[in-house]
């Protein structure tokens, strides 16, 4: 094994450093007919790849093996199943900017955990969910990851044990200092398998398959395909997010002449294409949903509609990101490229220090960073303490920590002038007028006349409320559990009124079903 010393950005020339290659004098010469230790590097590589894939599943098996060690009787829980569900949840909740929220994932895991042991307490379910999630992150280790050891034969026939480090769920910083979860590529591969293929083509394949399945009415399979398509959509968005992030950081870090514009054009085409495609699918499934006789089919089609809608949402999000990239580049270009030429050549910190250091073996790289650290951190004035002060310092009681923080200043509030068209009393009066019994709707003309008798200004408010009621927000009211709802219907009668024209609406109160049920 030699130390990997790839040139970075073509600026570094690394003197071959191969402390290991030096001690390989006794290369085993394969005797004719004798079995070679490995049938060839390609086969060995394939073996290593499979070993790594196998290693990725180890943490899941490990959960079930270790549950016996937990204080309490936990064997009833299928930990690997919970873990896979957790990885599923995190993958599906990964958004563009952030990942999935820790507590949210735990909350969504709970139903499954609870289903496995319905007679246990809620606290225990939550403890199990947290335990699984923390073990998938591997909270105890410094790297918060896993390590597996596998062996390969080097080019010279030596057997080398290597460390394979991987993560399943990683924690990423979110806005405002919060921590979010993302699944790693390894985890996605464990989950759905063989995903590290070309994202675009894989997605097209999945969608063509979906369309065929839909047209043949095989919805059960279609749902599986649609879910896989969504995983791929997420992965595709993730790839693009990384590229755009690099662009945002430094305009020179990315090839804006060809590579990125091509990439953005490609991605925009992709979004447009997918959008059309998925809308077509959506129409098809909706039709399937509405026409399906079998309630099971209907339900699956409805789920499918949700999944495809989510795909479309992600594509739209991706598109808005893509459109932001151009202006961002131009702004950075203005700042960086059109400045006055440099007075003198300086040190290129990235190209001459960071880039050459990163490929070095860590032992050697640390020498460079040590040298930088020693000279680059500034100075500290050593504290000199007198014995007399020390006594005082040690005897001073610790300061009570303020839990509530500093006192909030009294806000200086300015009363805003009341410029409402109608007063509270008028509103009350109008609502009282419109508080009709459910079985006795009234004509608008009658309501207006009655309102006019109370207050000459009131008819305007009543008319306004009645027109509003012509398109009542049934869904919202239903969700919020309102017991009843004001509605207005036009039956074609003309309104005969000195101040208002139009239809003489029938205004009434409708009872909502959910409220009746409760």
């Amino acid at each position: 094994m030699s130390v990997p010393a790839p040139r970075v950005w073509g600026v570094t020339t690394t003197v071959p450093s191969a402390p290991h290659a030096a001690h390989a004098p006794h290369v085993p010469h394969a005797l004719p007919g004798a079995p070679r230790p490995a049938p060839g590097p390609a086969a060995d590589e394939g073996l290593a790849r499979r070993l790594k894939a196998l290693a990725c599943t180890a943490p899941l098996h490990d959960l079930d093996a270790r549950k016996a060690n937990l204080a309490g009787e936990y064997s009833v829980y299928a930990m690997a199943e919970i873990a896979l569900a957790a990885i599923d949840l995190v993958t599906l909740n990964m958004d563009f900017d952030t990942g999935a929220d820790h507590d949210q994932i735990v909350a969504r895991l709970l139903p499954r955990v609870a289903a496995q042991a319905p007679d246990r307490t809620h606290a225990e379910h939550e403890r199990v969910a947290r335990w699984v999630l923390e073990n998938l992150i591997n909270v105890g280790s410094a790297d918060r990851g896993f390590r597996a050891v596998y062996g390969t034969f080097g080019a010279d026939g030596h057997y080398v044990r290597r460390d394979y480090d991987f993560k399943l769920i990683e924690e990423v910083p979110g806005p405002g200092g919060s921590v979010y979860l993302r699944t790693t590529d390894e985890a996605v591969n464990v989950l759905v398998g063989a995903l590290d293929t070309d994202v675009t083509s894989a997605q097209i394949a999945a969608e063509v398959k979906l369309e065929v399945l839909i047209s043949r009415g095989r919805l059960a399979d279609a749902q599986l395909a649609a879910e896989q398509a969504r995983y791929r959509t997420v992965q595709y968005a993730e790839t693009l997010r990384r590229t755009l992030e690099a662009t945002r950081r430094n305009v020179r870090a990315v090839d804006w002449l060809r590579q990125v514009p091509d990439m953005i054009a490609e991605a925009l085409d992709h979004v447009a294409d997918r959008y059309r495609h998925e809308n077509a699918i959506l129409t098809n499934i909706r039709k399937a949903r509405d026409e399906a006789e079998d309630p099971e089919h209907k339900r699956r089609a409805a789920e499918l509609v949700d999944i495809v809608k989510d795909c479309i949402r992600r594509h739209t999000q991706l598109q808005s990101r893509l459109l932001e990239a151009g202006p961002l580049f131009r702004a950075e270009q203005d700042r960086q490229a059109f400045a006055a030429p440099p007075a003198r050549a300086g040190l290129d910190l990235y190209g001459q220090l960071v880039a050459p250091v990163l490929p070095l073996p860590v032992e050697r790289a640390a020498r460079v960073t040590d040298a930088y650290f020693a000279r680059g951190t500034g100075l500290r004035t050593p504290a000199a303490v007198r014995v007399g002060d020390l006594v005082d310092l040690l005897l001073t009681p610790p300061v009570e920590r303020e839990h509530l923080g500093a006192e909030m200043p009294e806000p200086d509030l300015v009363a805003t002038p009341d410029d409402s068209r109608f007063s509270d009393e008028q509103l009350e009066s109008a609502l009282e007028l419109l508080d009709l019994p459910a079985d006795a709707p009234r004509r608008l003309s009658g309501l207006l006349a009655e309102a006019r008798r109370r207050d000459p200004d009131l008819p305007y408010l009543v008319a306004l409320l009645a027109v509003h009621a012509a398109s009542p927000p049934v869904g919202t009211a239903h969700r919020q559990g309102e017991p009843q709802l004001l509605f207005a219907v036009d039956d074609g009668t003309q309104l005969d009124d000195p101040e208002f024209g139009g239809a003489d609406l029938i205004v009434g109160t409708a009872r909502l079903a959910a409220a009746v049920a409760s």
Partner: protein
Amino acid sequence: MTEEREERQERADGAELREPAAPRPAPTAGDVADAARLVGFGLQPRLLPARDAEYAELIRRHREDPGFARLADAVAAGLGLIVLEVSPRAGMAVAAAEDSVFAVRMGDYARRAASDTGDRFLHGLAHLAAAALAFPRPEDLADDGYIGRITVHGVDAFVRQACRRLEERADEAGENTDPASDAPGLEAAWRVYVRRSATGATKDARRLASSTTGIIGKAVAFLVDSGFLQRTGDEHGGTYRTTARYQLQVRDMAGGAAMAELLDLGVVPVSDGSASLAPAAADDDFLAADAGLPFHAAPSS
């Protein structure tokens, strides 16, 4: 800048030996006290002459009175300090010599770093990467008026991106970068960074100290205390802008020292003075352009 410093250093060293031939009043005890006070101001890196009238007056005197300047420089040299610049914008910018009592030692900075090579590297890299992002182009480091802006998450993302490219290259080349189990020191440096989590949840909602953003956060907080950065906001893990002192320190001290160490390791980074944060379009093109200059003059170190 370097020559100027050396010259001053020389003058400071030989202050007692080479008494000026021209008639000049011998420094009084008061002058020495003033010179020492100026150095004392210099040791408070967050203090700026613009904020303190006495400091500003001493800076002015240092610039106008060569005798006083020599005296102040001699005091600094005697304390184990290297004078980088004395100006109204940076104040008396001094850096600690390697064996000085003012120098910062890695073991005091981070306890774990003393025993663990990986941690030591990560802490050092955090400082190096912060500077690289603060001064992305050579022009930025050379331009006295340049103010860099960095964020904690930005530094992390930038190093991760660089590491990811190395990973992709290694993958393309079909290299197996997994380190041998019995030789952890031979693991490629970028892998140590990639392996470490970017962040992590902790019980008290603080940044996980061993995560990369924790390490970078520690570095920038330390640089703020050194008067090298000023905190401007909380977005993206904390946003900061650079000070004149930081530029001086990186340009005249740290960059050169790290470069010398790198050259010592046999790695010769070539630069034509332009920023290399851009990738070469194709490797072959780049080689053709610079093939004749394998040992292109490295900047003064």
